[in-house]
């Protein structure tokens, strides 16, 4: 029976060659520079990271973080009540709700983003309706704005938040909530002291998923934001497919991944200390 472990070798070779090695090359390339023709020069250089300190790129970097955090917070706020409702519904509603939340995962985000072009453009559905009801006279410019980008991001990633939240809330021991309400706690108190702390694993997973996905999603800014808005991922994409400055693109990718990791660690620390405090508060 034991010989079957050697079958793992081709898998390991595949993942090494097409997953690990490529990322190591990107890290190495981030410490190189390019010549005037766009070719990579194989010698050590901080050039890629130095370019990042240009105020233009720093500004875009900051915008990306703000947009990603805003998207995450909005997703969390609108998803929690939905996940809470689903987790407390009858099995039939739960099943259907879950199917409805899962289906968007399997619809191309390109299509889901494009759908908003139909809605938001000047002759689009929203403007037509607003004019039809006489609420506005002139069509509003909604497409190619920051608001459109934020809306597109929230729309794309709400399911990413709902599912982990649902899984976490569903596992909360109902008896605790019943006990709280028997002891006279208001719904709000029971939610704040029991449901919320106990669903923190779901909040964590959902937030990380939404944050990282938002930051990496250059298509939404591309399609809904027009040329005016861009994120770090748009710049990265342009370095590799347009401007041909691969060392700079690599440096930005390393910065992107490191930032995500740092924020994830910080966030999990905050979540942890918050729940510790609640637990101690409960004991007192």
């Amino acid at each position: 029976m034991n010989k079957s472990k050697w079958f793992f070798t081709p898998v390991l070779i595949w993942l090494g060659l097409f997953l690990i090695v490529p990322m190591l090359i990107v890290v190495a390339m981030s410490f190189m520079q390019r010549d005037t023709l766009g070719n990579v020069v194989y010698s050590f250089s901080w050039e890629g990271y130095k370019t990042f300190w240009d105020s233009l790129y720093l500004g875009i970097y900051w915008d990306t973080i703000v947009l990603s955090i805003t998207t995450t917070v909005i997703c969390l706020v609108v998803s929690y009540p939905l996940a809470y409702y689903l987790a407390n519904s009858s099995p039939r509603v739960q099943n259907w709700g879950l199917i409805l939340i899962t289906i968007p995962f399997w619809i191309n985000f390109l299509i889901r983003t494009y759908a908003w072009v139909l809605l938001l453009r000047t002759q689009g559905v929203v403007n037509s309706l607003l004019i039809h009801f006489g609420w506005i006279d002139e069509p509003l410019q909604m497409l190619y704005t920051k608001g459109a980008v934020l809306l597109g991001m929230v729309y794309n990633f709400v399911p990413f938040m709902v599912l982990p939240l649902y899984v976490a809330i569903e596992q909360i021991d109902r008896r605790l909530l019943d006990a709280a309400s028997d002891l006279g706690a208001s719904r709000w108190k029971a939610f704040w002291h029991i449901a919320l702390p106990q669903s923190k694993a779901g909040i964590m997973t959902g937030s990380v998923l939404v944050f990282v996905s938002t930051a990496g999603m250059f298509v939404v800014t591309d399609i809904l934001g027009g040329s005016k808005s861009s994120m770090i991922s748009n710049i990265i994409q342009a370095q590799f497919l347009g401007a041909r400055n691969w060392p700079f693109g690599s440096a930005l990718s390393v910065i992107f991944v490191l930032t995500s990791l740092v924020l994830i660690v910080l966030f999990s620390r905050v979540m942890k200390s918050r729940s510790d405090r609640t637990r101690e508060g409960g004991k007192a």
Partner: protein
Amino acid sequence: MKKKGHPLLGIHSALMMIFIYVPIVLVMVYSFNNTRLSGDWKGFTLDWYVSLLKDRHVMEALTNSLIVAVVSTIAATLLGTISALSMRDIARKWRGPLNGVLYMPVIIPDIIMGLSLLVLFSQLHIPLGKSTVMIAHITFSMSYVYVVVNARLAGMGRQLEEAAQDLGATYWQTFRHVTLPQITPGIISGALIAFTLSLDDFMVSFFVAGPSSTTLPIYIYGQVKRGISPEINALCTLLILVSITLILLAQYVLNRGKGQKKNKMLPF
């Protein structure tokens, strides 16, 4: 007593579902709208679907997508299944790290995976084309196959296999007649997921596709950047319907086995 939540919760949930589904349904409805320009409803037509069939670029992208999806599904299913099976015989201390590596493609942002593969292919002087797209798709799909088959294996235990071997079955006989039949639903389901992922992928393909290997999502992206068109609505509608059908089928296959604990299809 207060089992039901606040009534506002229900209203909020209904509104969220409307928010999620109105745009998608709208694309589908517009694909049947008999006008090229305005947003008003001008009657039902199938013209846009017909003109898709006549469009050479669409047909070429469709062919590319299907070739890539078929090849990468076969390879990813094989590699994913092998990973899940052999993982059981690997020493416990190695399982954690190997699991981590297998989960990486699910966790790494698509953009990073795409650009790092682009860099690798260019360093190895491999020209971009259908084969590079296939390699990329195999790499991320096999993780999903692994997750599904692994869940199936974890649910079945090893008693039957041990019994077969005690009764004198060889390793291959045990595999062929005991293990394989039990994990087949997982394998089929994993393959359907791999196929859907490949058909749907844009981000990774965008980096590693050459000019002659445009896939459907890449084609759609190019068109969407130019503005809206009824043909794109039709193409999107078809892609939505195919993806949903495949995924529901995968879910059905996975849960069909009697007595099996129901697996909820979580995409990660």
